[in-house]
């Protein structure tokens, strides 16, 4: 049996931060561990087999954290695992009561709002691309060669699908912002 497990597009399977944390925790209880998060971990991540452990994970979106961000978490006993885009990851081994980094409802909602804001940025960028390509196709189609036109139509379709997917993700996150 392999001691490595590769997971693709994990961030798209578990959209809510709390679902993502629970999934990581389940993996750890089965002995699958990830010790470092990188920029591309949302697309491709590798777990290594080890002893089953009870870890509480934290998914904390922080675009530009202040200097005291990491020291604050570390004083509370959390181990820093790195960041995946703007999301920072922490874990703490525990027995008995499950530790919480966000201890009240307001903090959980705010954390989820930061996640929505991060998705919104991508949504706006792709939406602008769709609008720009749409304008070119609408007003300058006659001056384009067939090849250029075909490429733009394909790009429009591709970005359009991404915009729709991001829109659905945003709606889902908004609906579940208290979880």
């Amino acid at each position, binding site marked *: 049996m392999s001691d490595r497990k590769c997971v693709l597009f994990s961030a798209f399977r578990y959209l809510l931060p709390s679902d993502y944390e629970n999934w990581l925790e389940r993996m750890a209880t089965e002995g699958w561990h990830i010790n470092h998060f990188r920029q591309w971990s949302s697309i491709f991540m590798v777990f290594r087999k080890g002893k089953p452990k009870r870890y509480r994970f934290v998914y904390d979106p922080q675009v530009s954290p202040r200097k005291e961000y990491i020291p*604050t978490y570390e004083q*509370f006993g959390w181990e820093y695992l790195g960041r995946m885009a703007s999301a920072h990851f922490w874990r703490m081994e525990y027995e008995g009561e499950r530790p919480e980094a966000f*201890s009240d409802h307001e903090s959980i909602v705010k954390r989820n709002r930061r996640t929505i804001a991060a998705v919104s940025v991508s949504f706006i960028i792709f939406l602008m691309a769709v609008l720009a390509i749409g304008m070119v196709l609408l007003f300058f189609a006659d001056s384009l060669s067939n090849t250029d036109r075909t490429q733009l139509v394909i790009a429009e379709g591709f970005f359009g699908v991404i915009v729709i997917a991001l829109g659905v993700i945003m709606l889902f996150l908004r609906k579940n912002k208290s979880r």
Partner: protein
Amino acid sequence: MGIDNNLKKARMRYIPMSETMLYILFSLKQERHGYAIMQYVKKLTKGRITLGAGTVYSSIGKLENDGLIKGICEEERRKIYIITALGREILCEETARITELYKNIKE
């Protein structure tokens, strides 16, 4: 004029105040860092409230940005905070509001 505006803004943002925010602000009547705030609040509430790292970090950031607390120094990578005059005023007004609420309900 500036102080009045800050007080008005702070009233709008912080009154009524969440229990977490109130305890954090109250605990900073003495100089404390993030972890010490959590320990103090836990002791004060006899273990009912255990503030998490993310909650303390984000609450401190908000209070500091709005001028209710300020950082005074750093010790072993830990930033120490204390309440400001604006923070004291808001804490006082919020305490009065809660006291009034308590009296009205008790009567």
